[in-house]
Every structure is written in structure tokens, then in C-alpha cells.
């Protein structure tokens, strides 16, 4: 079969074949099935690949995170388990296997006073919207699962359904602290959803379409060898930073992880979950992180396009996943570095800084579009955004009486 694929090149060179290899393989596989079943089988293959790929990525990233945090904290992370039952260590990257076995075999404790049905359904209600969100992400050239007309709206709609599962988990556990953690988590997620959506609106406004494929295609042009990614514009950079911070808050990652802080509220809304349900929550959280990073890459970082025109020979999916890993590494780095924000600091930051700044960003994007191609628009937009940032930052910080910053280093 590989020989047939190699022989039906008809004008495409090796790089294009490599780029489209998964699409070609899928067409070959669908071709084996009788005609009436072909749409169903095609959809099933696209759908089945998403959990496979991203669950594998999840397994890799859990170990990567623990090792990354460990190195930043001047210690080794897990480094013993490579391939089980052998002595090959693989720098500890086989750690997910014993973790998975542990979570599958742990006893599933459900509190007696807990609401059984809702307690059971909460992890399921978390996973379904999170997996649905991957359907509109373009992971390579021609590699979007479903090219919806209102793709970005669909993503945000299913993202909003995640908050419901947080509430179900917190309330059904019949535990004061779980409920408190759930309420905090929902308040945080709702507050940060607005800057998230508003910073995405700037991109939608400039591109003129809600389709993720169109958004990536709009960034697929090169000037002087540099790509037209939206992050290279003033409003795009501000929008990307806002989107990044808001996605940190949406995934409940440090510095916004007060709802699930181990030192404060044990585990927040999933305190009463053990065993496989806890593993499902963990999986759902990481999959949500990947999905929202994927959307950030699509909107601001050019999706599957290469940054420089001399690098376009690389396969598109390699670029997408490389950018995804870079963003995930940034998440891990921030987690290991920054301390946690208090609830009121968190909410002040969302409503009094990020929301006005994202509104100013929309105005700046409009000004950018209507000033045409001139160097003046760079100056105007940058000064607009920077002025708003300075004013809002002064507004947040001028009442703080902070002491002098001192550093203590480990010897």
C-alpha cells in the first residue's frame, strides 16, 4: 500500500505527501468500505483519532509536567519508570503507566450522603464538552474534524458547558469545602470567559469569519519571509497575552488554581472523587488545557503555518503540535514559578484590568484595519494599547503597599 501511495504522487513532491499523509491514509481506509457507509466511517475515523492522539499527549504531558516542575524546583522529577518490567529507564517517561494502573485499581469511594447520580455523572459531563471542542481545531492542512460555519462560537459554547460539571461535582459531594471550591471555580471561570471571548473577537473581526480554517488561511501569507501571524501585530500581541492569561484561568492552572489548591481547600470540587473518576477529572482538565491552547494557536499563532517562509516544507501537523507543546511548556513554567492569586485579587484582575483592556484591544484592532497599510498604524495602535495598559495598571496597583522585594536562593 505504501508503494501505491508513493506511486500516485502525480505532481506532488515528497514534502506535500508527508504533509497530507494522514489525509491520504484516511481516504484509503474509507475506500475499503461500501459507498453507503463511507460518510459514517469517515466521521468515525476522524472522531476516533482525537481521543487517541490527545490522550497519548496527556499521558506524556503529565510526566513532562512533573519533571519540568521538578527541574525548576531544583530536584529531579520521576526518573525511574521507563518500560515496565525491564531495566530501561527512558528518563522516567513511562511513569504514566503505573499512574494509570493505580487510578484504575483504587477503590472508588462515594460518600454516603452524596447524590449518587449527579456524583457519577459529573466527570462524564466534564469530558464530553471538552472532547467536542477538538472538532473545530485545524491540526494540519485539510485536517479539521468538522469545518463548522460558526466554529469559534461552537468552541466557546461547549467551553461554557464545563462549568456545569464543576458545579455538579462540588454540589453532589455534600461537602462544604467542595461546594465552596465549586462556587469559586465557577465564579472564576465565568469572570475570565469574557476577556477570553473578547480577545478572540478581535481576530474574528479582522478575518471576517468564524470558521477556524479561514482564520488559519488568513495567516498563511508571508512578508519578507515572516508569516502574517496575528501575534506579530500590536493588537494581536495584546490579544494573545490576554487570551493566554484567560486560558490559564479557564483551565484552573496556577496562578489561578485557588479552586483546587492543595494547600488551601484540599482538592476543591473534586475532593470526594477517588480512583477512576479522579483520573477522568484529571484527564478532562488536561484535555481542556490542550483544547484552549489549540484555539489560541489557531487564532493568534497561525495554526499549522510555519513562522518563516523558508520553513514551509515542514509538515503542518508537526508545526501545530510543536506550538502546542511550546504553549504547554509555558503553562508548566508559569505553574512552577508564580504564586497563587487570592480570590479577590483574581476577580479584580479579571473585571478591572483584563476586561477594559480587551475592549480597548477591539478598538485598536478596528483602528488597525481602517488605517490601511502604513507605518503610522503601528504607532497609533501600540500607543493606544500601551496607554490603556498603563492607566489600568496604575488603577490596580497604586493602592498596594508592597514591601521591598527580597530574594532567597537555595545554596
Amino acid at each position, binding site marked *: 500500500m505504501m508503494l501505491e501511495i508513493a506511486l500516485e504522487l502525480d505532481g506532488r513532491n515528497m514534502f506535500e505527501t508527508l504533509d497530507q499523509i494522514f489525509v491520504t491514509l484516511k481516504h484509503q481506509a474509507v475506500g475499503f468500505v461500501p459507498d453507503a457507509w463511507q460518510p459514517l466511517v469517515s466521521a468515525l475515523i476522524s472522531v476516533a483519532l482525537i481521543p487517541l492522539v490527545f490522550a497519548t499527549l496527556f499521558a506524556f504531558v503529565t510526566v513532562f509536567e512533573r519533571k519540568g516542575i521538578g527541574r525548576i524546583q531544583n530536584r529531579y522529577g520521576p526518573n525511574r519508570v521507563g518500560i515496565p518490567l525491564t531495566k530501561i529507564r527512558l528518563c522516567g517517561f513511562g511513569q504514566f503507566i503505573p499512574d494509570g494502573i493505580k487510578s484504575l485499581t483504587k477503590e472508588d469511594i462515594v460518600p*454516603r450522603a452524596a447524590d449518587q447520580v449527579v456524583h457519577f455523572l459529573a466527570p462524564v459531563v466534564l469530558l464530553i464538552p471538552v472532547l467536542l471542542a477538538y472538532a473545530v481545531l485545524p491540526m494540519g492542512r485539510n485536517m479539521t474534524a468538522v469545518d463548522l460555519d460558526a466554529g469559534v*462560537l461552537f468552541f*466557546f459554547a*461547549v467551553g*461554557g458547558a464545563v462549568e456545569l460539571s464543576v458545579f455538579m461535582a462540588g454540589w453532589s459531594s455534600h461537602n462544604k469545602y467542595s461546594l465552596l471550591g465549586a462556587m469559586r471555580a465557577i465564579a472564576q471561570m465565568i469572570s475570565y470567559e469574557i476577556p477570553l471571548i473578547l480577545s478572540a473577537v478581535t481576530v474574528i473581526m479582522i478575518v471576517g469569519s468564524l470558521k477556524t480554517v479561514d482564520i488559519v488561511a488568513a495567516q498563511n501569507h508571508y512578508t519578507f519571509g515572516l508569516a502574517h501571524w496575528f501575534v506579530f501585530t500590536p493588537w494581536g500581541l495584546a490579544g494573545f497575552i490576554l487570551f493566554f492569561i484567560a486560558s490559564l484561568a479557564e483551565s484552573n492552572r496556577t496562578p489561578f488554581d485557588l479552586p483546587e489548591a492543595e494547600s488551601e481547600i484540599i482538592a476543591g470540587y473534586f475532593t470526594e472523587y477517588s480512583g477512576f473518576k479522579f483520573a477522568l477529572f484529571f484527564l478532562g482538565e488536561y484535555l481542556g488545557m490542550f483544547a484552549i491552547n489549540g484555539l489560541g494557536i489557531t487564532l493568534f499563532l497561525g495554526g499549522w503555518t510555519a513562522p518563516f517562509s523558508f520553513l514551509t516544507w515542514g509538515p503542518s501537523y508537526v508545526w501545530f503540535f510543536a506550538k502546542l507543546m511550546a504553549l504547554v511548556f509555558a503553562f508548566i513554567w508559569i505553574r512552577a514559578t508564580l504564586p497563587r492569586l487570592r480570590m479577590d485579587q483574581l476577580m479584580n484582575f479579571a473585571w478591572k484590568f483584563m476586561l477594559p483592556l480587551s475592549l480597548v484591544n477591539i478598538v485598536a484592532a478596528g483602528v488597525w484595519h481602517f488605517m490601511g497599510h502604513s507605518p503610522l498604524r503601528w504607532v497609533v495602535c501600540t500607543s493606544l494599547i500601551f496607554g490603556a495598559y498603563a492607566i489600568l495598571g496604575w488603577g490596580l496597583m497604586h493602592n498596594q503597599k508592597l514591601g521591598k522585594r527580597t530574594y532567597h536562593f537555595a545554596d
Partner: protein
Amino acid sequence: MSPVFLIIAFVTLFAAAAAMSLRNLVHCALSLVVALAGLAALYLQLDAQFVGFAQILVYVGAVAILIVFAVLLTRSDATPNQAILAPGWIVGIAVSAVVFATLGWAALNSTGLPKEMSPAPVATVKNIGDMLMTQYVLPLEVIGLLLTAALIGAVIIAMKEEPLSNSGRSRSDGASLSKKSEPPHVGSYGSEKEGGGV
């Protein structure tokens, strides 16, 4: 009347009936979520993509969460011990049955309904955006104003009032409040702490 439509309609109606008849308010709110999601699926089946996703974004993502918060803030989340139906509920059920009978009869026997099926309309987001900016721009601005007013109004209504120390009025309100009996049903956590075995 495709089987998909029948299944979605059945799920929606069942969830709506459950939302109105369950004892525990949080279960009612969660069944309402299922009903709203079923309605969104119906919109998607009727080729109204934008409306379907907007329904999920607004109703499931925001209104349902609002209802759940209100249930918790009014301490209604425990299963109530008293009757859940207002007195005279039979009349209410009878009235709604009559309403359904009238509407159903009108739908089934009407002669003004279009007979032939028009082809699936093209309702791209671009068309919707064009219409919103040309033909429906006035309702759009009015909706913006309305939402702003609702936002400010809701915050002001639900805000805790500062007790005025120099006027006697709120003092007497506070006194009458404390004289009112403790609600017969204390919040969920307190009463079931011993029996729950958390």
C-alpha cells in the same frame, strides 16, 4: 418526522417534565439543562446552526448557572419537607392541558400552514452579520442598551444594602427580621451533618 427528531423531541419533553416535577431543586435545574441542550439539538436539526450554538452558549452556559446559583443562595438546595405544589394546583394543570389542546388542535387542523417543504436555507454567519448591521441595526443597539440596563439593575437589586445607622427604619427592619422565626428548614449542611457521615 425523522427518528432523530423524534428522539431529541422525546428527550427534551421528558427533561422539561422532570424539571417541573422533581422535588430537589438542583435536580430540576440539571434537568432544565438537558431540556435546553435538547432544544439546541432541535435547532441544529432544523439547520439553524448559529441559533443552536448561541442557545448553548447563553442558556446552558449562563442562564442555567444563574439558576443554580440562585438555588444555592436562597438555600433551596435541600430536598424540601413540605409540599412542593401550591394549593389549587389542579386548576393549573387543567389550564395548561386546555392550552395544549387548543394549540395542538390549531397546529393539526390549520389550513394556513405551508404544504411543500422549502429547501434547506443558507444561513451563514456572514448573512446574519450583514442583516444585523443593515436591517436589524436598531434592535441590535436597543438590545445592547437593554443588556446594559439589566446588568446594572441586577447588580443593584441583588447587592447587600449597607445598614444605615442614623435612620431608624432599617433598624426596625432588622429587629423584625430577627423576630421572625428561623426558617423551619435550616441549610442543608447543618441539619444533616450528624446523619450524613461525610
